């Protein structure tokens, strides 16, 4: 099969892949621009291209875009796209500790492995996996999300109350806008712009980057010390001991990311939030999460890249787009007269192989390109703050504005800069807030949808396999935690 994959390729297509990855990485790294926007803008330009070239370009942009956002997340505490917000949590503290190069290196390697693991699933198990995914009912979704939330609560040591408050705040931020069921507006307070709710990116950029800028202005003595010479290139590559330490975490996170990607309508940010929650729950040092934990970083990055391959699974095997980007890809395919669906494999096998090959090659290109440039990019961490801060401020504003050409989003970003600042000054962690913000909409939609199937009854929903397993895991983890605390 590998042979037939490679045969379906020529040098022109390869160039498109390189172009796509490079553009994707650059756009992904710029806050306010996402792979989705890049692909949407590129799509009309691909109408005149060969189908294989078009789809290779678009898929490569997808792979590059999810990867590129780790750069600004780690170096500037500014998630380039929502997919890398969990990366920010541990990546930026590592930069503050003078380990920017190492953080970038680990994140890039984890991204690559995540991409490759999901690729293996895509190539070998596309059809059975999507068969399994469509068996998943709404309440199974809900049980999975609640398990992730419970694990975080159970295992957050120390400030459990503060964690809960931050998590609830995240849930509240997710509420205004269009009611996911019925589509009516809620909590818009008569503000037309709020009818779409708070866009994720301005909120995240404000909470993390805007907050950081304000804090540096108000308390200059706390400013991050400029790091000199701490970012040697040799730190970037994974060593044997790193592989030994992280292989299980990366594999698990990649599998989680792939699975979340396969589930329809669930994006990369959720895959990474999920993997982060599970990694923290099963870590021996959960205290370190949010303070520069390497495990948190690799969990987030391997999972968000794995969602790319995962989301292609239902698209190729059933014609059902797993994410917004996949809906765009589907549009691109249809323009070229290719209708993804169960028959695509029989009617256009070459084409399916070409997509497989693209995902693989794009991941390799991503790895090489990012390794080659990271040495230079990491130097951003050495720029004195007085030069970096104004640039960051401009990026925050432009990025928020560019999301949907609206000043309202800039206002949202500014408000959440203040919110983030207050929370962190009062020692509230932003991680539970983000997890609440990202997971609450899924939990709400799936719960309300599930109870419509049973006319409001909850018991018949719980007594099905997936929820029972989730409950069992949660209780088991809680019990173990309790015993550990007792012994300690």
């Amino acid at each position, binding site marked *: 099969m590998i042979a037939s994959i490679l045969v379906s390729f020529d040098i022109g297509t390869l160039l498109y892949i390189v172009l796509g990855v490079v553009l994707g990485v650059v756009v992904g790294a710029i806050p306010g621009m996402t792979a989705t926007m890049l*692909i*949407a*803008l590129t*799509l*009309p330009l691909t*109408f005149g291209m060969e189908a294989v070239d078009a789809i290779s370009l678009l898929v490569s942009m997808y792979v590059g875009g999810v990867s590129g956002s780790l750069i600004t997340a780690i170096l500037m505490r500014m998630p380039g796209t929502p997919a890398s917000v969990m990366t920010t949590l541990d990546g930026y503290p590592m930069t503050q500790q003078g380990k920017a190069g190492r953080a970038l290196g680990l994140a890039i390697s984890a991204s690559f492995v995540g991409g490759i693991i999901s690729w293996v699933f895509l190539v070998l198990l596309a059809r059975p996996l999507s068969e399994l*995914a*469509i*068996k*998943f*009912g*709404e309440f199974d979704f809900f049980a999975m999300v609640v398990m992730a939330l419970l694990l975080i609560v159970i295992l957050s040591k120390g400030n459990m109350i503060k964690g809960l408050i931050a998590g609830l705040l995240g849930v509240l931020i997710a509420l205004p806008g*269009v009611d*996911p*069921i*019925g*589509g*009516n*507006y809620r909590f818009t307070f008569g503000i*037309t712009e709020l*009818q*779409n709710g708070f866009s994720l990116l301005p909120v995240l950029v404000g909470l993390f980057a805007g907050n950081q800028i304000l804090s540096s202005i108000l308390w200059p003595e706390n400013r991050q010390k400029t790091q000199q010479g701490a970012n040697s290139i040799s730190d970037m590559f994974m060593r044997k001991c790193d592989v030994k330490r992280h292989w299980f975490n990366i594999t698990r996170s990649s599998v989680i990311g792939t699975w979340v990607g396969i589930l*329809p*309508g669930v994006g990369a940010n959720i895959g990474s939030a999920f993997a982060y929650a599970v990694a923290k729950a099963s870590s021996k040092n959960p205290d370190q999460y949010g303070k520069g934990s390497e495990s948190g970083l690799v969990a987030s990055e391997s999972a968000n890249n794995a969602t790319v391959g995962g989301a292609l699974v*239902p698209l190729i095997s*059933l*014609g*059902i*787009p797993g994410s*917004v980007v996949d*809906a*765009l890809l589907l*549009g*691109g395919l*249809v*323009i070229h*007269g290719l*209708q*993804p*669906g*169960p*028959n*695509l494999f029989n009617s256009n096998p070459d084409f399916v192989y070409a997509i497989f090959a693209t995902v693989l090659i794009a991941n390799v290109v991503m790895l090489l390109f990012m390794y080659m440039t990271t040495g230079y990019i990491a130097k951003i961490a050495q720029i004195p703050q007085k030069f970096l801060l104004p640039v960051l401020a401009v990026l925050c504003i432009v990025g928020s504005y560019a999301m*949907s050409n609206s000043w309202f989003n800039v206002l949202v970003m500014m408000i959440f800069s203040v919110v983030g600042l207050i929370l962190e000054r009062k020692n509230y962690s932003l991680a539970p807030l983000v997890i609440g913000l990202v997971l609450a909409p899924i939990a709400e*939609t799936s719960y*309300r*949808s599930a109870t*419509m*199937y049973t*006319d409001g009854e909850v018991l018949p929903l719980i007594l099905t396999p997936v929820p029972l397993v989730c409950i069992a895991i949660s209780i088991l983890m809680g019990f173990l935690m309790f015993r550990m605390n007792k012994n300690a």
Partner: protein
Amino acid sequence: MINITKHFKKTVIAVASVLVVTVAGSAFADTYPKKPIKIIVPFGAGGGSDIVMRTIQPYLEKSLGESIVVINVPGSGSVAGSRRAKGAKADGYTVLLNHTTLLTAMVTKKADFSYKDFDIVANAVYMPLVVAVPKNSPINNLQDLAAFKKKHGKAAIAGVNLGAINHFAMGMIAPSDKESAVRYVQTGGGAKTMAALLGKHIDVGILAGPEAKPLIESGDIKLIASLSDQRIPYFPNTLTALEQGVEASIGIQYTWYMPKGVDQDTKDIFAKALSSAIGNDSLVKALTDRGSVSNYLPGKESLLRVEKLFGQLEIINNTISK
């Protein structure tokens, strides 16, 4: 020498005719259009509506003799972009391309304005809707669906996006009396409804014709009716609801709106250009390949159609929102 003169003459004529055309163009400049026209697509780039617009764009530019700028303004189920178009200057340089979704948003009061706040230029391009059930489902036609509750002792589960067009379409074909009513559950748009049908979580769902096509052809889902007036060309064996004696005709009908108060001549020029673009054979083929129908209905008839459909939707809204 003669040759050169000849060439020279030719060149002069060519240049002159270009000049004449240009001058004529500017002489005509007090007629519409004399600058690029903005067309607002109130959905995201790359979505179904965006693809329809971008497919038509080159043909429409040609027949208008002006360039078109497509602006995607997604949000609030097409209400955000429609509102922007409503507030634009009524000079014919802002056009809104929206479909039946705008009417359902108005009926359910998600839009705080009405189709009467716009000038309807024309209806053009139509995407049919179909009624689908899982493979091996005991439901084979709309009569089976109506009899489901009595026969199986429980209501058929209908997956829809509450308040959206597939909900209204389901409301048109599904019985509403207590003995045979279906149970509505939230699945969402096409992709999610397809997944729910494949996973047999629901008994019946509404899909757009082109998105259903691959799963129908592979036999993974089954069609029980199409909701267009005539049979869908690529599903020739599927009976329409009308043929099955159910008064239901609803699809994704694209309507071209302008802000209220545009000069009639301007609207006519745009409508005429649209009509000739839509009639182009290669555009017809391009649209057909994507599962759409390139129907065209001028302004007055379109308004009547919209009024009629709006009335039907209001009646259905009373039954399905109970």
